[in-house]
């Protein structure tokens, strides 16, 4: 908290935050109007009538988190969900209808190019020094993180409160505050596949013809395809997150060939669809998100998130992504202050514990830890043997004592990222070719 005591304003903020914690602990009583302590009530009146609209995709912007935040903070947080494309379109076309935009790294690049954001003052973020170095310095577990695609580190910093351009390397001002992240891989049904899957090439293995599915969001679906082709040894990409036209052609032609052979049973574009395909048995192996695997397990159906750690030959690796919160340009005055309160609340632990139980990670594990049992934290973040039955957020048991999380610990996953979600320079060409694959 040392860097916060430089101006009276931030001193006041720091005080508020301290009190906020106290307020949270007695939230029930305070909300019921029992004046257990006076100050938090004054603080709450300060922000009375304020509503913050936090908008983004459903897996990052969750209603339950907004409800908890509203309860703890005393002003209203409204969570609105749109799919990836609809949300970026909304930020671009109606920026004033959004207060906090929830975006992935590549979307930050788009938003910055259009001047939609204001810089976030990192000094006002209490837990800033608790953020994992994956994001703040781009180095993790002694390894530089992959720069294929658009890494969160690459787009995280800006030149000042005006947020005119993205600046690489640590700066006091931020474009977005990472809030939830994960590594995507393949998911498979062990009962149908019958062996362990640790390589992307299994996605295009003829053995699973008619039983495979691929992600149908062009900019990331093509990366899953690229991982598979690289794994099979078809070619080595210069940058899977920013392909040349020739690389795009090779990838799409291979996909079309596979499709003509009837390899793909379907392709999916939403979380729920991927769960349904797997649970119904239509598909045995597909691009999949870790929490979708959890959702299949919750139905009592076996499903494994393939541990595709980088091999000694440099192949394989996960596709990483990270969603973060950005402050829209129009925020000012009380509303801006409230937004900072909210950002700090986000890092205070409740959200970190909540998303962990869904299979995601918070960039500030140390606060999340305070809100989880040690068995939970060890299982979800550290990849240790479950010391207790691990339950999902809905109370469904999803791991028995002694089992271990697929893909291992956070460190194991994130020191094995091959590429990040992206938008390519040749995006327009890629989208057109992707549609040729769809229409084939």
């Amino acid at each position, binding site marked *: 908290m040392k860097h916060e005591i430089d101006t009276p304003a931030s001193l006041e903020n720091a005080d508020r935050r301290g009190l906020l914690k106290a307020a949270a602990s007695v939230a029930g009583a305070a909300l019921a109007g029992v004046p257990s302590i006076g100050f938090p009530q004054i603080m709450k009146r300060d922000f009375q009538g304020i509503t913050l609209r936090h908008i983004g995709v459903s897996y990052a912007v969750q209603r339950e988190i907004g409800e908890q935040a509203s309860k703890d903070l005393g002003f209203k947080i409204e969570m609105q969900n749109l799919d*990836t*494309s*609809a949300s*970026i*379109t909304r930020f*671009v076309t109606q920026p004033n209808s959004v207060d906090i935009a929830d975006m992935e790294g590549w979307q930050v*690049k*788009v938003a910055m*190019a*259009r001047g939609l954001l204001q810089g976030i003052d990192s000094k006002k973020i209490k837990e800033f020094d608790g953020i994992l170095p994956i994001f703040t310095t781009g180095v993790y577990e002694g390894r530089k993180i992959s720069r294929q695609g658009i890494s969160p580190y690459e787009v995280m910093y800006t030149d000042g409160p005006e947020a005119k351009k993205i600046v690489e390397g640590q700066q006091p001002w931020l474009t977005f505050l990472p809030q939830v992240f994960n590594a995507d891989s393949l998911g498979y049904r062990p009962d149908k596949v019958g062996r362990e899957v640790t390589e992307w090439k299994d996605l295009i293995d003829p053995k699973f013809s*008619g039983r495979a*599915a691929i992600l*149908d*969001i*062009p*900019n990331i679906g093509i990366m899953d395809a690229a991982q598979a082709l690289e794994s099979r040894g078809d070619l080595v990409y210069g940058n899977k997150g920013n392909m040349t036209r020739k690389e795009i052609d090779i990838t799409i032609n291979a996909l079309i060939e596979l*499709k003509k052979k009837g390899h*793909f*049973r*379907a*392709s*999916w*574009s939403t979380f729920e*669809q991927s769960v*349904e*395909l797997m649970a*119904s*048995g*239509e598909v045995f192996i597909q691009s999949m998100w870790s929490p979708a695997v959890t959702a299949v397990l919750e139905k009592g159906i076996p499903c494994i998130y393939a541990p595709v750690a980088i091999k000694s030959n440099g192949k394989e690796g996960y596709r990483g992504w990270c969603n973060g919160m950005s402050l829209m340009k129009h925020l000012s005055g009380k509303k801006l202050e409230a937004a900072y309160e909210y950002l700090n609340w986000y890092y205070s632990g409740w959200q970190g514990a909540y998303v962990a139980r869904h299979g995601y990670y918070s960039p500030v594990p140390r606060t999340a830890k305070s809100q989880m049992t040690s068995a939970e934290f060890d299982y979800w973040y550290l990849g240790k043997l479950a010391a207790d039955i691990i339950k999902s957020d809905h109370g469904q048991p999803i791991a028995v004592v002694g089992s271990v999380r697929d893909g291992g610990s956070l460190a194991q996953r994130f020191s094995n990222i091959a590429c990040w979600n992206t*938008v*390519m*320079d040749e*995006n*327009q060409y890629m*989208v*057109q070719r*992707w*549609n*040729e694959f*769809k*229409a*084939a």
Partner: protein
Amino acid sequence: MTPQHKSWLQLAPLTLVLLLFVAVPLVFVVIVSFFRSDGFDTIPAFSLENYTALLSSSLTLSLYLKMIKYALMTWAVSLVVGFFVAYFLVFHVRNRSVAIGLFLLCTVPFWTSNVIRMISWMPVLAEQGVINSALLALGLIDTPLRILLFSDFSVVLAYVHLFTIFMIVPIFNSMSRIDRKLFEAARDAGAGRFKTLMLVVLPLTNSGVVLGSIFVVTLVMGDFYVVKVMSGGGSASVVSAMYDNVSTLLFPPAAASAVILLLILTVLIVVLTRFVDVRQELVQRS
């Protein structure tokens, strides 16, 4: 105020609404279709490259061919189903209130959302769905039919389910306005039931058929969601390609594609309406 002024005044509100919410946005779409895009931003310009790219791409052709295929299949099935449902309601149900009741029953699917109706097909058509389980139990097949779901079949099935009502309504409307005396005359002249259907009913419901066809065909051509879900993402449509463009903020190519689709649909509707006098259709003949 002259009567002429009065009618202008009466027209004004609708004209304004149409100008503001239909004409102006369309003009914007047309303007943007000439802009350029660099992947991150849209750059105002006057460039024909969006159009040349679209019109010279084999993708456009294959998307339109696919769309026409879906439109024709859906049109044919919904026409047959729609015609006979309307025929039954108008000529076979004697009691008028029963007919109206049954007609309302046809609209029941519309009390739920498009999405739910469509997704409810999944448990029916899936590998372990109702149809496959039934066929397996009856011993008619020994491996589940996989063509039922995520195929052209399932796409057209969903379209027919969703859009047949738009065929029923105008045909029902035309049929119920056929003068019953014509049937007596036909019978007197020696026509049987089939001949009456062909020579009396069909020509007089022509306009309803054309109107219904316009609805069904335009709905199919404007769809992206049904095709996406029911084909399991295995098929694309003109609009879904547009959607993929918009999703990465490639507005200008999407706008150009929209303009082309709009032109094609306009031509289609102009041609179809040559066969029907919409104005006549809306006036109550006594």
